[in-house]
């Protein structure tokens, strides 16, 4: 299998491999905005790699197979809980736990796939099933004492952790592990894209009925895709649990991880190999930058005070404008996320990557 790497990516990879060597330097501190050098910078890249990995996992079923899932948080959660339980209760190394997590999450994904696709659930109905499924999983975890119920699971802190405990004092090991996971997912997906399995998925995405008609084993392929996708998401869950040392059902609330995962993949380009990667590299820094640029809000006092004051209507309005100017209720960063998503969907529905490719192709023509 020949692996032609675009020079941009090659340069990018070299830079990423070298980053930990310069992240803590004074030069980096001078160049980067306040607070974004050193350990903090490493953390941001770890997040990028993590979301790129998760986006890639989603991509298999959501991008290539075209089955939009907003429920990957469930697979992520299952993986995180499995490896954490094995570690906390049985002392099993989270490395092995990650394998178990991948397998377990894949089983769950396959189960969901088998049930859904057997009954012919497609398109938006499938999306709704994934939403309901995630909520069901979350509610079960929320009430199950063995896994900590609403308290979640706190992974024990080791002051001097060993490699097998999958805990590290510095950021570098997490960085390279996450980078390796991201690279691994790229290799896996690019292999899928060139394989017969990948062509099946592509055909299913284009027109499932036509694919069925020409003999593509649609049901089997979709189940394989969702199992693979879920398994990877489960592995990601283990990494996340080991990195943050804490997993709680709240992490599975719809609208957080589930949406963040697919956001990157969709914006970058669902169904392409590098789309989720590009998407993560765009979204995470945008999120960080917007938190820097926009006021958090609250500095202007409280809206309720303005509402309940004795001032007249005109005066209240003036106070309200002041309040908005000081940042209002905050959350401008998230407005940005939503607007970016909508713009990409409208202007570049295939994602940023295909759009860029078209531009460069027409530029060269």
């Amino acid at each position: 299998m020949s692996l032609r790497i675009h020079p941009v990516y090659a340069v990018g990879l070299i830079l990423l491999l070298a980053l930990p060597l310069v992240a803590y330097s004074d030069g980096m501190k001078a160049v980067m905005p306040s607070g974004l050098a050193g350990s903090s910078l490493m953390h941001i890249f770890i997040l990028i790699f993590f979301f790129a990995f998760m986006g890639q996992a989603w991509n298999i079923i959501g991008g290539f197979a075209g089955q939009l899932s907003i429920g990957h948080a469930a697979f992520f959660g299952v993986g995180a809980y499995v490896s954490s339980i094995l570690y906390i209760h049985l002392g099993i190394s989270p490395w092995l736990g990650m394998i178990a997590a991948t397998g377990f999450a894949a089983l769950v994904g396959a189960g969901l796939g088998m049930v859904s696709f057997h009954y012919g659930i497609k398109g938006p109905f499938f999306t709704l099933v994934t939403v309901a499924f995630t909520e069901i999983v979350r509610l079960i975890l929320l009430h199950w004492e063995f896994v900590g119920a609403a308290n979640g699971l706190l992974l024990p802190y080791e002051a001097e952790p060993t490699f097998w405990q999958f805990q590290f004092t510095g950021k570098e090991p997490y960085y390279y592990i996450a980078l390796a996971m991201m690279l691994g997912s790229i290799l896996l997906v690019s292999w899928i894209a060139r394989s017969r399995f990948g062509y099946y998925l592509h055909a299913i995405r284009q027109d499932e009925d036509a694919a069925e008609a020409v003999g593509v084993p649609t049901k089997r392929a979709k189940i394989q895709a969702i199992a693979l996708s879920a398994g990877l998401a489960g592995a990601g869950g283990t990494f996340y649990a080991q990195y943050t040392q804490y997993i709680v059902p709240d992490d599975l609330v719809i609208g957080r991880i589930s949406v963040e995962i697919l956001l990157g993949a969709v914006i970058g380009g669902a169904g392409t190999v590098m789309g989720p990667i590009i998407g993560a590299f765009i979204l995470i820094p945008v999120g960080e930058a917007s938190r820097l640029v926009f006021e958090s809000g609250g500095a202007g006092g409280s809206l309720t005070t303005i509402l309940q004051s004795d001032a007249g209507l005109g005066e209240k309005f003036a106070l309200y404008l002041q309040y908005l100017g000081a940042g209002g209720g905050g959350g401008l960063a998230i407005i940005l996320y939503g607007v970016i998503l909508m713009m990409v969907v409208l202007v570049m529905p295939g994602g940023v990557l295909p759009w860029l490719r078209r531009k460069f192709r027409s530029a060269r023509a």
Partner: protein
Amino acid sequence: MSRIIKSLSLAAGVALSFSALSGVAAFAADDVKVGILLPLSGSVAPIGINNRRGHELAIDEINAAGGIKSLGGAKLVMVDGDTQGKTNVGISEVEKLGEQGVVAIMGAYQSNVTFPTTQIAERLRIPYIDPVAIADSITEGRGFKYTFKVSPKASWYARDQIQFLITASTAAGEPVKSVVLMHEDTLFGNASSDGQEHFAKENGLEILANISYPKDTPDMTSTVAQIKEMNPDAVVLVSYINDAVLITKTMRELGVDIPIVGTSAGHIDPAYIANLGDAANYTFTVGEWNPDIKKDGAAEIAARFLEKFGIPMNGHAAETYMSTMVLREALEKAGSSDREAVAAALRDTKICGDANLLPYDCIEFAADGQSPQANLVILQIIDGTYKTVWPASIAAADAIWPVPGWAAR
């Protein structure tokens, strides 16, 4: 070849735009930076913003009084880290605060954000003061050296709630025998109700039900009807503000004449009274503090808070205020803004008597980081204001028990 140049210039462009965002750090050379890690946006932002006010008032007062004397009058500067109420954002913010050179971090209000962020702080060796988050396991069994928990434990809230119920009802001649516990289904609700169940059992109370309800639901009618049917002597609630208001409204609608004992949060929020009007009266809640407790200076600080922010001071703000004072004490003692020195000083810090605004004698830290004496008070809403009714040593009013029924109000 040109593609490589293109790639490199792309990379350079990204780097340049980042540095454009650098901005100029507007700190003077000898300022001491203090990291404030709170949810300043997102659905719990109002509480986060209120927590921040306690820090702000304290820092203003400290700076006005000459700053940190042992550091040559260095001023304290707040550096905000907005967690947005989310764990992974909280982690990002702790990293940033660490890189920005804060001497210590105070936060993060929510227990589930406090767990991972204290851990990062431990790895980075940054002193982390927890003013408000209550989960027992923040300090239990972790062996952390850099976490300093000013707030009482979740289980102590329960201990004092149950203690009050028994004391007040016995004094009125009709000791409470049965309770219903009801809590919202997140970490806060769970942690609190675990403690309540434990202490209720320990004191021989019959727990008729321990109900976990979904947070932010529009309709609580069936559940409240169920409680009316069970007819306990008291209902112990753990709710945030929306649910607290809805449950009380529903109890009024259905004519449920059972006294409510809330667990701070929603029941101690001024919006509770604002939204319920007269219906808020007679509600009990455990609380961290109240302006009317019998401590010298409490009322004055409350007045200054009200003047500065136009909002009454509550327990959270008192905790964040005092936590800032604890930090100041440690800085003075350490005579240095080195994190190790400050951490060492914090371990020996002790603020007692009237210098401690909170309703107990001394703030200090045990080996596990918990402040051992952190006690609670019980408040009751009487005539539209919160009044401290327990413990007797610092109470400002007598508890009204038994609580009049809805029809009789």
